[in-house]
């Protein structure tokens, strides 16, 4: 993709994303009624759940991209993996923050050591380590190689953490979405979750593209600097 077509793509996506978000938030705040037991605070689910989906999609995509880097040794996949992980980490932060706000009101405490919260926190810590590792290595191919391995190890860990913490304790509300056999939400209330997911995926894609451009520019500057030093 040339840089001008990419720019155009980013702007188009931004317009779609903005339109989706405005429409979704109009529905969420103006059309949908308060929930019977929780009142107005339940609306946080429309940010919380789509952010989880976006975050985990990101971590999974990063795993695939890391594997592809190791298979091809093409640094483009490494830049992609790094960008996706950072964006997914941002969404994971949103999940934790919105979850804590909801918990403060619904449970009375900011934090409960419940299964899903703990899983999310562990997941956050693992990928935070990934980002730290990238900052600690300067040589691009070494950075790409080692962080790809960490990404794969991290993803495997999340699967184990997910299952084991579920056995440990569960306080989090049971799944309410019909796709996980929850069926606890009225259909009209459930739909905005998926629309918001779409909007957030658009937003995440924009962030990833911008971050990748930044990564490419910094690599270009690096090579120019090296060229300048060689004279």
């Amino acid at each position: 993709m040339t840089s001008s077509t990419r720019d155009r793509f980013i702007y188009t996506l931004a317009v779609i994303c903005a339109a989706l978000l405005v429409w979704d938030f109009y529905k969420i705040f103006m059309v949908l009624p308060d929930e019977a037991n929780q009142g107005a605070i339940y609306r946080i689910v429309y940010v919380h759940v789509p952010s989880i989906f976006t975050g985990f999609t990101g971590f999974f995509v990063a795993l695939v991209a890391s594997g592809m880097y190791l298979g091809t040794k093409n640094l483009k996949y490494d830049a992609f993996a790094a960008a996706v992980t950072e964006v997914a980490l941002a969404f994971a932060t949103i999940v934790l923050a919105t979850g804590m706000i909801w918990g403060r009101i619904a449970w009375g405490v900011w934090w409960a050591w419940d299964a899903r919260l703990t899983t999310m926190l562990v997941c956050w810590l693992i990928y935070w380590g990934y980002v730290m590792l990238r900052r600690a290595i300067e040589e691009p191919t070494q950075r790409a190689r080692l962080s790809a391995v960490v990404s794969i190890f991290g993803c495997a860990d999340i699967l184990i953490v997910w299952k084991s913490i579920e056995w440990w304790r569960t306080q989090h509300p049971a799944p309410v979405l019909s796709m996980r056999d929850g069926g606890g939400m009225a259909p009209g209330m459930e739909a905005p979750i998926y629309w918001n997911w779409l909007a957030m995926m658009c937003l995440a894609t924009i962030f990833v593209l911008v971050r990748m451009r930044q990564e490419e520019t910094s690599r270009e500057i690096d090579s120019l600097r090296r060229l300048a030093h060689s004279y």
Partner: protein
Amino acid sequence: MGAFWNGVWTIAQKDLRSELRTKEAFNASFSFSLVILVLFSFAFDPTSEELHAIAGGLLWIVFSFAGALILNRSFARELQNDCLDALVSAPISTAALFLGKTLANYFLLLLVEGAALAVFAILYDTHFSKQFWPVVLVVVLGTWGMTIIGTMFSALTVNLRMREMMLPTLVYPLLIPALMAAMTLTTDLMGGTPLGPGNTIWLRVLAGFDLIYSVLAVVFIDIVLVG
């Protein structure tokens, strides 16, 4: 296959022999665990009954801190005089090199843990003699998980400037499922609850963790050390 295990054994022997001659990792790690064990006595009432409810957790915190000291040095000690380059170019596979180092670390760590466990039992009046073999099983499985991840990341961070800082940042979050399982089991066993249907699931988590990461580490070690 015989040559592979020969390589593993040679590396393990080399590491253990140099440790036996200096005893520096063992001494540092054991004295560090003593200090932590003493510090615990200020964190809570060491004579209370509550202690039994958290004993397993405390013990594994000691193990994982003491382990970090041993594992941190595992590959870093080979940097002097370019020993690591010589090891990587030796006529054995990197997997054999890795497994050899893992075995040496494992053995050392088990020694430190055994000593720390004895001190812990004396200082805090804990009894696990009734559940001795199950505790040994948990320690053996938990320590393997810790060693395999620790040695892998010791190799991964060996060339980094901020090695000492990066290793714990990366290793502890990954160890959480193994530590959680080991802590739960050890607390149960020290409280007198035998292994049963209520807690064998944690044994499976530990064994699964060990298996998954042993395979992943052996598969990826070549990428980490050679590229």
